[in-house]
């Protein structure tokens, strides 16, 4: 072990120690997310917790394993009073002189990362599950416990998974965990029950007793008095006189003297100051603080919050790679598995060696897939992909094949077509896809990119695929 060497760079400070490079970040602006890949770990100076949360979220929320799996340490003299943040980072040092104490942790993390095999997860849910279980594996974490969290729209955070979602889409976490459990990767235990807004799925609700008729919470309550001698029954207000604070019966003018003897209070009545409706049982409404909808509590969505525990199958899936879920998309009609596509590509390249023909492979990439899929949920996501494949299939020849590289990248072959024409077809196709989205999924902004690579029989098929998808992964 030796002295730590500090290199100041535009993108933060690099600290080298014992053969490891630590990226030291002081400001959010100094973080270039791609730069994280080049370091063994990240140290964040804890001045303002909000910016620390943002930096940690950007790293853990990234989709590249060599970014989201990177160990993160906080530099702080005091312990961090934020359970979610603590769950997302790997440790704390009081100052940079203590870097040496991190080395063992970093090496352990690197060793664990080397155990992992990353398969291309096709569905969004599978991608999220992969991220979650690989993170748990590298952190040697066996359980995923819900943490009551004020910044979460569902009031509970599963930090390693929730970090991938914006506050408004956080409810999707529960669906993904359900899928992971149904796949046998987790077992669960009941923790709590929450209620979500039926409009926006937020759990930030304000519960109020309201008038059953107009839903106003502006009400007043009064005791009902029954005067035994004359049988008059009415609110206490009726019995008050203007002279003293005694109660007199408005029907027989007798003074009320002894509860239980000449009068009693058999019930309470409420009057709405808004619509004057009188009632005895309030309705309970929940006003969503996120979207403003005000509904009866019966209309809320009830969800169970569980503690999750990684199973043997879950651990194994983390190491060997988790590719599909039962909700996956490889059964989408008109596509073939990616492995089959690769084999067919290999034969096409071999064929070109003989024919000197002109064939291409093309890719369509959904640039904002994480955002889109988190908004849609798994069922609609599958519907979207089905529609996309249907449009693509109708615009290519039947001899050409389509496959998924991932849920955001579709790959297809265009054999015996000049590269220029392939580009033109792809351009038209993307335009059609955009029109389809605009007409079918209103309010959903899906951003497409495409790329065409002409096959060169001098290059192996792997090189073609890398060239095609390098910009998209």
């Amino acid at each position, binding site marked *: 072990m030796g002295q730590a060497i500090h290199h100041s760079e535009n993108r933060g400070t690099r600290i080298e120690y014992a053969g490891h490079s630590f990226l030291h970040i002081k400001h959010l602006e100094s973080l270039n997310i791609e730069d994280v890949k080049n370091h063994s770990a990240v140290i964040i100076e804890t001045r303002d917790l909000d910016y620390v949360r943002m930096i940690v979220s950007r790293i853990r929320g990234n989709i590249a394993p060599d970014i989201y799996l990177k160990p993160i340490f906080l530099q702080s003299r005091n312990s961090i009073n934020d359970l979610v943040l603590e769950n997302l980072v790997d440790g704390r040092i009081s100052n940079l002189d203590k870097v040496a104490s991190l080395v063992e942790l970093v090496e352990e993390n690197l060793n664990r990362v080397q155990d992992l095999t990353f398969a291309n997860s096709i569905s969004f849910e599978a991608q999220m599950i992969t991220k979650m279980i690989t993170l748990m594996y590298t952190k040697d974490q066996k359980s995923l416990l819900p943490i009551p969290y004020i910044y979460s729209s569902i009031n509970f955070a599963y930090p390693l998974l929730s970090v991938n979602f914006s506050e408004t889409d956080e409810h999707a976490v529960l669906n993904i965990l359900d899928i992971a459990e149904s796949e046998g990767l987790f077992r669960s235990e009941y923790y709590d029950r929450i209620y979500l807004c039926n409009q926006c799925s937020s759990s930030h609700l304000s519960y109020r007793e309201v008038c059953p008729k107009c839903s106003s919470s502006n009400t007043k309550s009064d005791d*009902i008095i029954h005067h035994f*001698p004359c*049988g008059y029954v009415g609110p206490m207000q009726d019995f008050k006189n203007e002279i003293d604070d005694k109660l007199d019966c408005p029907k027989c003018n007798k003074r009320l003297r002894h509860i239980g003897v000449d009068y009693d209070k058999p019930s309470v009545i409420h009057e709405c100051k808004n619509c004057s409706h009188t009632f*005895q049982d309030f309705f309970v409404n929940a006003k969503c603080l996120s979207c403003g909808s005000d509904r009866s509590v019966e209309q809320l969505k009830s969800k169970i919050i569980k503690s999750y525990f990684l199973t043997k199958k879950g651990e194994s899936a983390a190491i060997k790679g988790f590719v599909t879920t039962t909700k996956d998309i490889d059964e989408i009609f008109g596509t073939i598995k990616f492995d089959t596509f690769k084999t067919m590509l290999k034969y096409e390249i071999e064929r070109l060696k003989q024919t000197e023909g002109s064939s291409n492979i093309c890719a369509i990439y959904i640039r904002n897939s994480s955002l889109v899929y988190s908004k849609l949920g798994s069922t609609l996501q599958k519907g979207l992909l089905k529609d996309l494949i249907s449009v693509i299939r109708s615009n290519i020849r039947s001899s050409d094949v389509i496959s998924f590289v991932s849920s955001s990248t579709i790959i297809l072959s265009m054999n015996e077509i000049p590269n220029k024409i392939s580009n033109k077809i792809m351009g038209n196709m993307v335009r059609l896809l955009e029109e389809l989205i605009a007409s079918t999924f209103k309010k959903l902004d899906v951003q497409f990119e495409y790329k065409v690579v002409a096959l060169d029989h001098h290059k192996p098929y792997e090189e073609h695929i890398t060239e095609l998808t390098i910009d998209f992964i």
Partner: protein
Amino acid sequence: MIDKIIDNYLRFLSTLTPADFLEFFWFFLIFEFFRYFLVEFIVLILTEVKKVTSRKQRASASAELFFENPLVSILIPGKNEGKHLYKLVNSLSEQTYKNIEIIVVDDGSDDDTPAIGRMLEKAGLIDVFLRNEVRGGKASGANLALRYSKGKYIIHLDADCSYDFDAIENILIPFYMELGVGGVGGNVNVRNYKHSLVTTLQGVEYYNAITIGRKVTSYLGIYRVISGAFGAFRADVIKSIGGWDIGPGLDGDITVKIRKKGYKIRFAADAHCLTSVPNTFKKLVKQRLRWDKSLIRFRLRKHNDVFKVQASFRLLDFFSAFENFFYNVVLNFKWYIYLTIMLTFYRPLFINVFITNVLLYTIMNYIKFLLFSLFRDRSHSSVSYFLIYLPCMVLYFGLFLRAVRTIAYLQEIFFKMSYKDTWNPRKTSIHAEYLRL
């Protein structure tokens, strides 16, 4: 033995002169035949004439009602009536008159009435459901509903009754036919008349006493009991008298209170309501003891001022109370005098007189029932069903109900038993007794 009685009776009939007939059957002729057949028959004819002549007036009253379309508050107080509520509100939703608010008061039920009531309120089938955790009695329940009513007219219903689709409309029309009407009673008939002998007999009794009897008293201006099962009131009038006082017998009491305020009380024969009557003699006795005691309590004690000549004296109120008192109380005891005279002075002829009385009453019942059936607006039961049971009416009305009435009157006159009736909670009865209410 029977042959001997028949022979004896035929001999008695053959020797019976008009003078003898009057001497033996003066009670029937003077009181029963005159009042319950002759007067009623004449008045029924007059009501039919009035009905024809006032047809236009009625049409314009109906039009005025629908033009004004006032809010009508329907009050349904009761204890453990939850099981009837859904059927009742459903029948109310079928009414031709739609601008109604339904207020149900649960007077300390100990069954599932609160849950049913809340559910119906939530479903919008009831406008207001109020529950008193502690039972306060029928009057307190009705008064609570009245306190929170917003309608121009108040209709008081019993939860176990059902109503013709136009009953609400028809009970409101009299308010628009003449000025100064403070309350209107509906035409209550028996739903379960086929259940047993006792319900069948009550079916005939209700027809005589309500459908016919109240038509007559209403025409004469002496109608005195708006039934709690179906009665309509002007909201301002009923509120001005402070609603209902402690019962039992609060229906008759509130009617008298309204009359004493100078308002007219009318009967709407075409506002039909069906109720379930007691289905055993034991239950009937309990009910009638309660009703009959209230006659003494309210007519003789609480409202005895109608008999006094004072500033507020009104002749019709006097007649109304007098007719009620005379025919129910005085003649009830007078009958025992008649019985005593017969047993004392005409002992050898008693059986013959008794048989003749039974025959006279039975014949009158048949003629009356068949003849008066012609005046029925509408029937929920066939006339022929009752014909076979009419002979029983003599024993039912003349002996059974008379005995019950006698016991009730004596209990109330000497022991004020109505104040001890558990129909009302003790906490309220104790005050009513003390204040002589």
